[in-house]
């Protein structure tokens, strides 16, 4: 775990557990089956997160979720979904290694993120998540508390994002 505190925002590369991309039709039936397989709520509202026992779903699109879980749950989840495949066609793809997550915490966190994110972070509720863009790079952004966010980007983009965040943090530290 890398951490960084050259500025007012604490930055750390988060430990990555299991991560899946789930695609499935939005019939209540399909969703219910997926929920059962996953073992945590799966909401159909874009931006909504469903959490239970360390597992979390985040709805990214009308038929797309990213599922996260502790590493140990990886195989059981895959098996559970394989079990519903015939009745509920879907796509579950392991993307545990595709992204790397960065945790950000501190009062100035929105100022730091606003160096690269165009959406209004004041209007982004805690407990939500979304796919958006940081400095031209697709990221998944979650807000966990007023001053705590998690940012995920594809692996090869992370050094760039990390560099920008640490530089931005230093800039915030200067207070100008």
């Amino acid at each position, binding site marked *: 775990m890398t951490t960084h505190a050259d500025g007012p925002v604490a930055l750390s590369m988060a430990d990555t557990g299991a991560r899946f991309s789930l695609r499935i039709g939005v019939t209540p039936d399909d969703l219910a089956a997926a929920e059962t397989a996953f073992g945590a709520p799966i909401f159909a509202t874009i931006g909504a997160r469903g959490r239970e026992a360390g597992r979390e779903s985040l709805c990214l*699109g009308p038929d797309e979720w990213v599922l996260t879980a502790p590493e140990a749950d990886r195989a059981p989840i895959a098996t559970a979904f394989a079990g519903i495949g015939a009745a509920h066609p879907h796509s579950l793809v392991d993307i545990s290694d595709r992204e790397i997550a960065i945790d950000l915490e501190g009062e100035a966190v929105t100022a730091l993120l606003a160096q690269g994110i165009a959406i209004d972070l004041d209007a982004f509720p805690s407990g939500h998540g979304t796919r958006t863009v940081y400095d031209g790079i697709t990221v998944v952004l979650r807000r966990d508390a007023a001053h705590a966010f998690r940012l995920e980007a594809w692996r090869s983009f992370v050094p760039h994002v990390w560099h920008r965040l640490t530089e931005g943090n230093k800039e915030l530290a200067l207070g100008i």
Partner: protein
Amino acid sequence: MVPTMRQEATMLLIHCPYCDKTLPEVEFAYAGEAHIVRPADPAAMSDEAWRDFLFIRTNARGPHFERWRHVHGCARFFNAVRDTVSDRFLATYKAGAPKPDLATLLAETERAR
């Protein structure tokens, strides 16, 4: 279709009909004229008809039916009506939804002013 031209954005706000949110253009990508359906049986088409499908575009000056993709959001392609003179969006709607009636749309936009 045009890989060699760098595709850049202005800074419009676009309403994604799937996310039901109005978001900055950086999250979206333009995807050309809308309601051009790929023919069911291309082989049966004349060269002229196939050319029209491939290349002939309305290029409307004024309200334009076009496609966008919320590529850095929900990733869905959707349709929009945008006035190409002002760049204002008159409407956005889900892919597959019927083409809205332009007269009604224009009247609504006028009223909203």
